[in-house]
């Protein structure tokens, strides 16, 4: 019985470990350029400034505003992933996995808040996912040629 309990705990922990590690490896993908900044500027997304303020200044944040900010950026980017320069109008498998990962980290942020633990790590993981989505959108839009339109101009016309 004890062995079965140990196997259950260890296997469950390892399952979540491998899930997290797989998502981190997908997020570690290198893009040929930093597309996310132009996408964030075109759509007035706030995650780059949030990430900067946490990494460089470790500034204190208003929790409710932070949650709203992340949620709005997530909804905007998931819409763009599906609709901007996407022939299939569907999420890819890794995008679905990262969407699940984002939701899991969002829940983890709420739990950390409840248990009064440090939230910065969870926030940085969430912004990393958003940055990846923005880079994917930027890469796709960049691959589409629309005369003299830049990626930002194309997105504003969507």
């Amino acid at each position, binding site marked *: 019985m004890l062995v*079965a309990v140990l*196997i*259950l705990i260890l*296997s*469950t922990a390892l399952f979540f470990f*491998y899930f997290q*590690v*797989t998502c981190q490896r997908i997020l570690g*993908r290198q893009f040929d350029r930093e597309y996310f900044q132009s996408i964030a500027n075109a759509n007035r997304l706030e995650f780059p400034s949030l990430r900067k303020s946490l990494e460089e200044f470790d500034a204190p944040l208003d929790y409710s505003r932070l949650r709203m900010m992340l949620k709005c950026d997530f909804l905007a980017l998931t819409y763009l992933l599906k609709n901007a320069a996407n022939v299939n109008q569907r999420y890819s498998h890794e995008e679905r996995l990262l969407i699940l990962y984002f939701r899991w980290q969002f829940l983890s942020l709420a739990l950390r808040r409840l248990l009064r633990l440090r939230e910065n790590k969870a926030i940085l993981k969430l912004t990393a996912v958003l940055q990846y989505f923005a880079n994917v959108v930027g890469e796709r839009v960049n691959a589409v040629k629309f005369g003299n339109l830049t990626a930002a101009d194309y997105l504003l016309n969507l």
Partner: protein
Amino acid sequence: MDSSIASYVLQYSGYLIEGGLLLYLAWTKQWKKQRGIIFYLTALLVAELGRAYAGCEYGLSSRQYFYVYWCTDFPLVLSTFLLVWLFFRRACCQEERMWRYIRLVLALAVLLVAGISAATLSSNQHSLFSFFTVEFNQNLYFTCLVLNTLLYILLQQIQSTDEQLGLLVCGVGVQFAGPAAALALDHLTGGEQFAQSLVPSIMRLCTLGMLLVWGYAITHVKASKVVSRNPVLAEIHVD
């Protein structure tokens, strides 16, 4: 009705992805580089199709299906161990001395599992086949999970540049960890209907998860460059 439809969708999606991956590897001529993956996927596909046939022909609660299931599980678990072995080999391709020790540890691990499984036979001599097969298979699956985790830690320690191998190892981890937890839960609850119905669903979901991670790793991520230590030899590219 809905749960059986979902179950069929998972089952047939798995077959399609396995077949698709094998075709992709054949088309891109990666027989030598990805022999572990090809061997495991072939064993998995053959086992699953065999079980599906036996299930349809004799019924899921028949004796024939029981024997087909556990007889196909035995070569499948051995091919799983072989897969982990080949991943370790790939990780240690530039560390021959380390590979000699790891090879010994892996051989000892499988002998230990066989020994522990055989030692418990004394209390179950009336159901020799079923007990040994089930016990050995489950013990070796859990051992492969632990070995896979050790392999992941090894990849971090040696700072391996093989990103593809890292993702393949993560896929294997997802494939083993979920079912191991579900089987342990089934064992703890003494075969409660809820736990028993959970085990096949979790197994299919985790297998599907592994296949999707492998699909991403094989199609989107390049394997690392292997540079010979001998300065006289030319650089060898593995992509």
